């Protein structure tokens, strides 16, 4: 019982550190939205900030509305938070920090995220490909930020640590192939048994 309540507690308290206090807790949140503003992935590292799912989604909506039109921008200030972002085809990547945070640190995180994903998705940084490799995306985010601390900012290192290979042949194709082989095997079995039966009947 203690095991499940304690981690929650410790997270809340560590996040309380004031923004001006020297701290490793740089990133408040990361999220990836599609071009309709739907959440594909999002992580909030500061439990004080937007504690409920509703507040989080409202915030994401607000951020999206303020940023999705101007594609040349890469930084904005929404609800008192500094937000750096990037878009790629039909995806929007956001990294959120406090208003006092060093913007270039947030940029380093965003760039690392973007480049790492570019590599594991083989430059196809678009919605469909991202969703097909969502497990890899989760792992990349996990390697870059841990509980709000920048764990790694070099995309090469991230790729090496995640060691993820995008699917050469997506699951569907493979399973179809599997299916056909199964069927073939079955048919040949039936053929075999039919042959046997005919043989026996002749021999009789």
């Amino acid at each position, binding site marked *: 019982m203690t095991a499940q309540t304690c981690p929650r507690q410790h997270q809340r308290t560590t996040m309380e550190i004031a923004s001006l206090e020297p701290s490793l807790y740089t990133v408040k949140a990361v999220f990836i939205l599609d071009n309709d503003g739907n959440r594909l992935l*999002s992580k909030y590292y500061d439990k004080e900030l937007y504690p409920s799912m509703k507040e989080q989604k409202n915030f994401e909506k607000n951020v999206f509305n303020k940023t999705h039109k101007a594609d040349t921008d890469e930084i904005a200030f929404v609800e008192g938070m500094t937000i750096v972002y990037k878009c790629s085809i039909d995806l929007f990547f956001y990294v959120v920090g406090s208003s006092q945070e060093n913007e270039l640190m947030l940029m380093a995180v965003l760039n690392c995220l973007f480049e790492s994903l570019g590599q594991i998705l083989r430059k196809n940084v678009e919605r469909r490909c991202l969703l097909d490799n969502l497990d890899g995306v989760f792992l990349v985010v996990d390697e870059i930020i841990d509980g709000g601390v920048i764990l790694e900012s070099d995309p090469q290192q991230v790729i090496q640590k995640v060691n993820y290979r995008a699917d050469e042949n997506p699951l569907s194709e493979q399973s179809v192939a599997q299916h056909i082989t199964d069927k073939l095997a079955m048919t040949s079995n039936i053929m075999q048994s039919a042959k046997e039966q005919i043989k026996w009947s002749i021999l009789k």
Partner: protein
Amino acid sequence: MIKKFDKKDEESGSGSNPFQHLEKSAVLQEARIFNETPINPRRCLHILTKIIYLLNQGEHFGTMEATEAFFAMTRLFQSNDQTLRRMCYLTIKEMANISEDVIIVTSSLTKDMTGKEDVYRGPAIRALCRITDTTMLQAIERYMKQAIVDKVPSVSSSALVSSLHMVKMSYDVVKRWVNEAQEAASSDNIMVQYHALGLLYHLRKNDRLAVSKMLNKFTKSGLKSPFAYCMLIRIASKLLEETEAGHDSPLFDFIESCLRNKHEMVVYEAASAIVHMPNCTARELAPAVSVLQLFCSSPKAALRYAAVRTLNKVAMKHPSAVTACNLDLENLITDSNRSIATLAITTLLKTGSESSVDRLMKQISSFVSEISDEFKVVVVQAISALCQKYPRKHSVMMNFLSNMLRDDGGFEYKRAIVDCIISIIEENPESKETGLAHLCEFIEDCEHTVLATKILHLLGKEGPRTPSPSKYIRFIFNRVVLESEAVRAAAVSALAKFGAQNDDLLPSVLVLMQRCMMDSDDEVRDRATFYMNVLQQKQKALNAAYIFNVRLCLSVSVPGLEKSLHQYTLEPTEKPFDMKSVPLANTPITEQKTEFAPVATSKLPEKPGPTRQDIYQEQLAAIPEFQGLGSLFKTSEAVQLTEAETEYVVRCVKHTFARHMVFQFDCTNTLNDQLLQKVMVQMEPSEAYEVLHYVPAANLPYSQPGSCYSLVRLPEDDPTAVSCTFSCTLKYLVKDCDPNTGEPDDDGYDDEYVLEDLEVTVADHIQKVLKPNFAAAWDEVGDDFEKEETFALASVRTLDEAVGNIISFLGMQPCERSDKVPENKNSHILFLAGVFRGGHDVLVRSRLALADGVTMQVTVRSSDETVVDIILASVG
């Protein structure tokens, strides 16, 4: 199952989301294949991804179903598929708070953490630390120590960051790893360096000497990581601020040297740190500003943003330091990033000289139509600030604003303009007529009821005092004919004010009122009838009381009124409800407009929540000793009774009631090896004040503020004794305790600590009240109890100083903007209004003349004679 939905997906095209229609129950059903042998890594991976996706979308998992899925997932540790194992770690972290008995995976994770596969070790440590509590932490302590100094960077980093997360939960355990962290800090890997530095600082931040040593070491050895440098700069500037070291300190030199670092991130951090330092001289700022100036022309938007944002900060304190960047900032006005452009313009408006205002305004008007409303509001606010700075430019601004008022725009935008015009009118009497004319034109075609009523109210207040009041009547009466009920009612009120102040207009106003009495709306009719009757009496005092200074809606606090009325209905009594027993609202201090949010944010204005006084009232009412004191009359600002950085910090808040005062002492114990108990402040009054009760604070542990109270009865036989000095002593029981655990010893001893004297002055008995029309209020109170006296203030050199002193001494509200002394004048009249304890209105008119010193003639009026005497006695 998978096949089915993939197929459906292909049909609907590549745009759809394969995870879109996931059902939690179906996914959990699928999770059963985790138990199949052999494990199919691909399918299991896919299901784990779905579970994490659902959690990420905010899907709620019940404890039962989560635990079931979690236990099934633990079987997957048998597979050696790398990605699958990594996804298991993620699932553990995501479910740590939802599922029960997550510690079941401890041994698997410990195995991975110490195993041969480096890919697993780091993530396993991070997952393990997420499910570990203090008791279990000791079991894995040995592994953690080894991991921190591991030669594989990812392992070391993971261990350091996880330790950092656990500092709050198990400080004592993590503290023992300081040596390992120290060793990791000298690692070659830049991230390990950064994480080690972060952990070391968190473990040592309460020990200033250790922090200082650490800084000394790292600033000399030179780190490789830019992140670590940023962290060092932050630590150094915090230490500089705490120790109040001069800027000749080696720490400052270190920060300055970082301005020449090869990483932009570090350079910016250093510049930002210098800019944020208190008391920086222009010479010290110069290198930081020139670095920021370079960044202004960077191709990276984030860097430009960072630079302008920081320059904007500099401009607030040292506008002259930023003037060198004006050219670069002007280029940024046209930046494609709106946030940058907004910051650039607001900075320029702060730094621009008076001569550049015209040019800037022209530049703004060239692009103001192309930008969004939200951005326009920021521009208007910047203009408003500029008007305050260069009042002589008001005609240019007024023109510009009236043009903006004619353009299309939403409510927020129009409101900002109207507010700005109103503030210009209030600041500059000579702009009043043009300003009112622009506003009149605006309400002719205004769709926003709130703005129309606001302007009508302003017209009613200012219009009658202009040279030709009659020209506003037409605009106001047009509203009565054309607009909605709320606007019509406001127009009627405004009309009444003209009638009350201008005798020659009265007959025509009465005719118009007559028409309004036929209105279809109740409120409009009621108001017209009411004003008609008041005006027909032609009595100044009635006009003042019922038309200009309506006490009810202006000065009482609404929650207070609600509470008083509720109390009244609870106790049946013959007496009528006494308005004077309602606590007054604190008059808002009029210091808005000075600072604006840096960028166009959509932040709503603060909600009119309960005021500070209402909160105190609530708190005091909860203490049984203070029952029956009546309602709280006034709460003063806190006074420090100790010097900064002493063992105990005590500040006092004075609460005044009708016949009592409560002193609230907020105490903080800054010694981590002491626990104080039964803390109270003993008070020795110098006058006939009587201390009735002490309410001690039971416990005062290290750094947790606590409050104790003293209840004092005011002398009833001598009502003029309003000021008193109390000598205060803090008394308490000390118990020594362990600084780490806070565990106190059983025995303690009594001790005391002498505090500074506490003064009660006349200001503590008077609540500020704003009278929008002072002359009318003056007539209303009448000269029954008027007294006048002349004083010479020899020590005061300027009128400004005299005005400031009087206001702070009496604690009354300056009216009619009389707290601002016009430049180059030798005489001034100050109007002050307030309510004395017990509910008597007090008005003070003070004529000041500047000769060698300042001569002051004070005239006091009140509805009660004692109050007049008290004020005069205290001034003298």
